[in-house]
Structures are given as structure tokens and as C-alpha cells.
């Protein structure tokens, strides 16, 4: 029997289904069986070999046989020296790239000594207010050998400038430093909600950085277009895919409007995905993302560069999928999510630690998370062949479905006039909030199961050790920042900040004057204050 409909009527109908809805964690309905009837198009058109258009099977020809993905654990807490120690620990454990988590004041553009920083210094990441903090953070790290990712957005221009000035001071030319700065402001308004100024000037700063890096820091990724936070905020997998790529459309078109060549800056765009629990959906999402981006590059923007057409990505397992209940179970969730990431062909991966719903991770928990990746890489055999799930009827059908549904969202956003307009009307924000609420309802009605939470729960939790952040460190950091400000040449800082303000007004690229300001000791908060004055302050519309 080769006809699916006939099979459904004859053989399947008599079989007894369990009384549940067969759908993904994103509530996408899944067929009992996928057959050749569910896939269309030719191999060359839909898949292509790895490293060949449309890159569905992978951005590189040899994938993990050539080089394993970069194991990059996101780390940051306390003062710069605390995180520096964690960095050295991770590199010693076999990690090959760094990823920096900054604290909330740094992320929001406040120095530790600002009143809004109260209670937040060093708690959710590492406190960096000045170039001196940055130098301490990366002490002993060879900047020409280790690539660094910095997760920071509205104050990203300042942190990048600090990294560049640090490279200068340690004698490493800008051409030799490599890394990524997240710098994806659009998804901040949509999901993560770290901002200083409104969307339009925020986009201008991002584009300044894309332009500057393309010319001066050729190995740097000036933006990591991120779905991670969109998903964590409660979106479905399709929404994550669609809104992220729509953000990408906005960045590319803004850079092109400025006269930049897509073949020149395109190769330096990178992406950042969330890897959630639903295995097949996640693998399909990563494959669909590569195909959509390649087509957009080629057909919409006329890119010629192969590298501009390939979507390369970092991924992180889903923080929101972890449970505070029976936290050791999180090790299993993370392993399965990481496996989906690898099956989906990611270039870089962070695996969450089991204790991250409770606190920042302990060294032991981080080691288990890193070992999880190493076990997948070295023991499972998954890396022997490229895109091992390619050609599965289910995977190909889901890849097609997610591509079609994401393209429908992208078309809608185009019709609204693009992502900046869509954000102004709250469209993606509301879509995500709806999905988050719907999922919560499903959990509470037991239509979706979270093991240890709404099923298989136990009355007495077994506690695990968590990391404690010393409450005195805030005082120490405030003291350090104030001392730094007293000891620098305040006239040069004032002059340099004035030049940043002038660049805000004149439209010239902001990075050179920001680098100058950092060189003479201008801080994260001071430069962010220039944005506040020149571009205005964005406040949360507070939609529910």
C-alpha cells in the first residue's frame, strides 16, 4: 500500500491512538506517518549537498568531519576577576571559544555606581563599567587565538570598542581578533527587552557597527541575529524562525540602503538559535533557516558570494525548558537538545547547566554541560556523516512546513512595511505573548507534559548546590569605578564624549569616536548617556 490517504483509512484507522493531541511543543500538529507523498521538489533544488546552495544540509562541505562545532559556554558573574577565573577553567576543560555574560547594569548601559544598578551588580553576569574592568576580564587570554562572543546589545558599541582598545593595548592588531557581538537590537524590542533608545536610532548604531567591522575588523561578526530570546520569551519554533529572519531582512536592507555591498558584509552576519525539547521540530527549524536565508540572499538581494548565502549559527539549549523541580533531569533535557542542535548542523553550541533555573551555574554543573557536548562529539558517532537525518520523510516534510509558515510571517511583516514598523505596532510582541499564554494554559490543563512539574512530581525535592554571589562585591565594584573616574583625565573624557554626541547628530560612523572615548577612560554608562540625550529613551509600552 503506497498511498498515504488509503493507508490512513485502511490500516491506521483501526489502530488505537492514545487520547492525546499529537503535536510539537510549539503545538504544530504532526502526522502519524510521513511518506514520499509528503515531500516535493528535486534533491538539488530543495537540499543540495552540504556546502552547496540552498545549504539545507549544511553550510560547509565537510561539516563536523572537517571541524567540530565550537564548544562555547556562556559565562559571567561577579567581578571581572571572578569571570576571568571561570574563563581559564573552561579553556582548560577543552572549551575552544569564550562567551561573555555581562550583568544587567552593563547590558542596560549603566555604570555600577549608578543608582539604577543597585542590587544588580555582578548578579546576572559580570560587571564591566570601564576599560580597566575589560582588561581584567580577559587577563591572560590570547586574543589572537581564542575567539570571543559578547552577549550585549544596546551598549554593544561601547563593549566592542573596549575589546578593540584592549587588543591595541595588548599588541594584537584588529585584523587578527575574531569573535561575535550579539548586537541584535530588533529582537531586544521583540523579546529580550534590553534597550536604551527607540528602535530607529538603535538600528542605526547596529548598521554603523556592521559597516565599521566590515572595514576594520574583518574577522568580527558585528551582529548575531538571534532567535534565542524570542523563543525564551514564549514564541513557537516557527515564530522564532520567522521573526529572526525578518530581523535579518531589516539589517541587510538597512546596510544596503547605506550603500554597503551584500557580498561584503553578508559573510559576517551570523545567527543564534534556541534548541528546545521537540527534537524533530528543532532539526527541521535549523535546516529551514539555512534554506530560507540562502534564497533571500540570492533571490531578494542578488548576492553572489557563497559565504553570504550560507547561514552560520550558534545555538543554545533552551533555558526555559529547564525545571527547578528535580533539576538533575535537566542534564537529560540538555543532552537531547544538544543532539538536535548537532543533527541540525550548528557551528557553535552552548549547553545549559542543570542548575540554571535556580542560579548562575556552579563549576561542576558547567563541566557536566560541557562534557555533554564532548560525549556527543566523541562517543556517539553522530559526527561521522553529514546531516544524518536528511532524506527522512518526516524531517523533510517538517522542514518544508516550517519554511512555508515562516515565509508567510515574513510576507506579513513586509506588508506592514518591515520589522521596524511591525515592532512599533507590537505585532511580533503580541504574537509571542499569545503563544506563551497558550502554552501555559496547555501545561495547566495537562495537555502538555513537563516531567517533574505537572507529571511524575515528587513531594520532597532533593536540593542541589547552587552558586552564591557575594553581596559585598557591589560595593567593591562601585568603589573601583569611582576610583577609576577620579584618576583619569576628565577634560579628555569630556571632549571625547562631546565628539560621540556630535557623531550621533551628524550621522558619521559612531565607532571611531566611541573607541576614542574608551581610550581616554569613557565608561559604559557615560557613553550610553550620550545615546539617552541624543537619541532619546525608549520605554516599555507594557502590552499584555
Amino acid at each position, binding site marked *: 500500500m503506497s498511498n498515504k490517504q488509503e493507508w490512513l483509512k485502511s490500516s491506521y484507522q483501526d489502530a488505537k491512538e492514545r487520547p492525546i493531541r499529537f503535536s510539537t511543543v510549539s503545538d504544530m500538529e504532526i502526522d502519524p506517518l510521513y511518506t514520499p507523498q509528503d515531500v516535493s521538489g528535486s534533491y538539488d533544488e530543495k537540499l543540495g549537498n552540504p556546502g552547496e546552495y540552498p545549504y539545507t544540509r549544511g553550510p560547509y562541505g565537510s561539516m563536523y568531519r572537517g571541524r567540530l562545532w565550537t564548544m562555547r559556554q556562556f559565562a559571567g558573574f561577579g567581578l571581572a576577576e571572578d569571570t576571568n577565573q571561570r574563563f581559564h577553567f573552561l579553556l582548560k576543560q577543552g572549551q575552544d571559544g569564550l562567551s561573555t555574560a555581562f550583568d544587567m547594569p552593563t*547590558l542596560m548601559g549603566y555604570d555600577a555606581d549608578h543608582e539604577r*544598578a*543597585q542590587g*544588580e551588580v555582578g548578579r546576572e553576569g559580570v560587571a564591566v563599567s570601564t576599560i580597566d574592568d575589560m582588561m581584567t576580564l580577559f587577563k591572560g587570554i590570547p586574543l589572537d587565538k581564542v575567539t570571543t562572543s559578547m552577549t550585549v546589545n544596546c551598549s554593544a558599541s561601547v563593549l566592542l570598542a573596549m575589546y578593540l582598545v584592549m587588543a591595541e593595548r595588548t599588541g594584537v592588531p584588529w585584523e587578527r581578533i575574531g569573535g561575535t557581538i550579539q548586537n541584535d537590537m530588533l529582537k531586544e524590542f521583540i523579546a529580550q*527587552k534590553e534597550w536604551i533608545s527607540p528602535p530607529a536610532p538603535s538600528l542605526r548604531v547596529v548598521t554603523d557597527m556592521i559597516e565599521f567591522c566590515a572595514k576594520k575588523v574583518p574577522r568580527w561578526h558585528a551582529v548575531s541575529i538571534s532567535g534565542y530570546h524570542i523563543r525564551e520569551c514564549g514564541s513557537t519554533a516557527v515564530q522564532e524562525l520567522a521573526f529572526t529572519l525578518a530581523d535579518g531582512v531589516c539589517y541587510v536592507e538597512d546596510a544596503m540602503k547605506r550603500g554597503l555591498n551584500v557580498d561584503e558584509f553578508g559573510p559576517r552576519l551570523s545567527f543564534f538559535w534556541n534548541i528546545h525539547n521537540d527534537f524533530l521540530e528543532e532539526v527541521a527549524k535549523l535546516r529551514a533557516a539555512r534554506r530560507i536565508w540562502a534564497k533571500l540572499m540570492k533571490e531578494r538581494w542578488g548576492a553572489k558570494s557563497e559565504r553570504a548565502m550560507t547561514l552560520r549559527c550558534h545555538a543554545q539549549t533552551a533555558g526555559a525548558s529547564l525545571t527547578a523541580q528535580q533539576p538533575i533531569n535537566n542534564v537529560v533535557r540538555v543532552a537531547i537538545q544538544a543532539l538536535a542542535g548537532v543533527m541540525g548542523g550548528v557551528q557553535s553550541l552552548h549547553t545549559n547547566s542543570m542548575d540554571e533555573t535556580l*542560579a548562575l551555574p556552579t563549576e561542576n554543573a558547567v563541566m557536566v554541560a560541557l562534557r555533554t557536548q564532548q560525549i556527543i562529539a566523541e562517543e556517539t558517532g553522530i559526527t561521522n556523516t553529514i546531516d544524518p537525518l536528511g532524506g527522512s520523510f518526516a524531517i523533510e516534510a517538517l522542514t518544508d512546513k516550517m519554511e512555508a509558515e515562516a515565509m508567510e510571517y515574513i510576507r506579513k511583516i513586509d506588508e506592514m512595511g518591515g520589522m521596524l514598523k511591525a515592532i512599533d505596532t507590537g505585532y511580533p510582541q503580541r504574537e509571542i505573548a499569545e503563544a506563551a*499564554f497558550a502554552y501555559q494554559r496547555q501545561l495547566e490543563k495537562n495537555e502538555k507534559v513537563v516531567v517533574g512539574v505537572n507529571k511524575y512530581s515528587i513531594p520532597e525535592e532533593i536540593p542541589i548546590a547552587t552558586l552564591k554571589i557575594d553581596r559585598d562585591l557591589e560595593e567593591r565594584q562601585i568603589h573601583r569605578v569611582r576610583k577609576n573616574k577620579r584618576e583619569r583625565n576628565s577634560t579628555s573624557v569630556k571632549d571625547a564624549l562631546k565628539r560621540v554626541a556630535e557623531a550621533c547628530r551628524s550621522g558619521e560612523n559612531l565607532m571611531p569616536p566611541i573607541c576614542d572615548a574608551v581610550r581616554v577612560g569613557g565608561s559604559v554608562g557615560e557613553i550610553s548617556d550620550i545615546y539617552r540625550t541624543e537619541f532619546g529613551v525608549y*520605554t516599555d509600552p*507594557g502590552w499584555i
Partner: protein
Amino acid sequence: MADKRLRIIVAKPGLDGHDRGAKIIARALRDAGFEVIYTGLHQTPEMIAEATVQEDADAVGLSVLSGAHMTLFPEVLRLLKEKGADDVAIFGGGIIPEEDATKLKQMGVREIFTPGASTEDIVKWVHANVHPRE
């Protein structure tokens, strides 16, 4: 008096942008029939205390996932007391370790909900523990 609709402020103090939980709670409380005012993100304790008095709220739900709860919660309590509104029921949620939750309750926070709490639990708690202010 008994049929007065309770007014509840759902607030996000501090710099933390994790608003998924706060929005879900705000919506669930609204669906349960309460009058809900959501402050939006990045509120200072002063802004929250001010809104509580202005809006004549009966309860304030604070959501913090950044670890700054031991600074921000007590500050809201202090300011409400200063404004003579310390009978407003303060409850909260977020990534809050048990030992901190115990301390916060000793300081006057009525209840702390942690990851995995259902909206139904929270609605039930409000029904049982929040009463219209005189």
C-alpha cells in the same frame, strides 16, 4: 465592600527584561476577574510605590528574575510603608532561592512563587489572601 473588584499591580522592578512570567500572571489575574495594572519593564521601587498609591491598589505582584530581589523587594516594602500603604499585599515571583524567600516573608512579603507555580495557584492565593483595603 465584598463585591469591590480587587485592584492588582503587576510590576517588573529593576533592569531585568524577563517579562514572560509577569505578562502571563497579569493576564491570568485579569481573566480571573481582577482589575490588573501592568507597569511594564524597568520600574524603580519609587515608580512602583507611587503607582500603588496613585492607583489605590490592593496588592502588588513583583516579578524579578535577575537576582536583585533582596535589594528591590525590601525597597518597595520600605517605600510603601513610608507612604502609609503598608497594608497593600505584596507578593512576588522569579528565580528566588528558598532561603531568600524565607527572609523576604519575614520582612513582610506575603508570598513568593517560584518556577513551576501555576497561574491557578496564584489566582487561588489572591482570592484567599488579598482583601480590599479600607
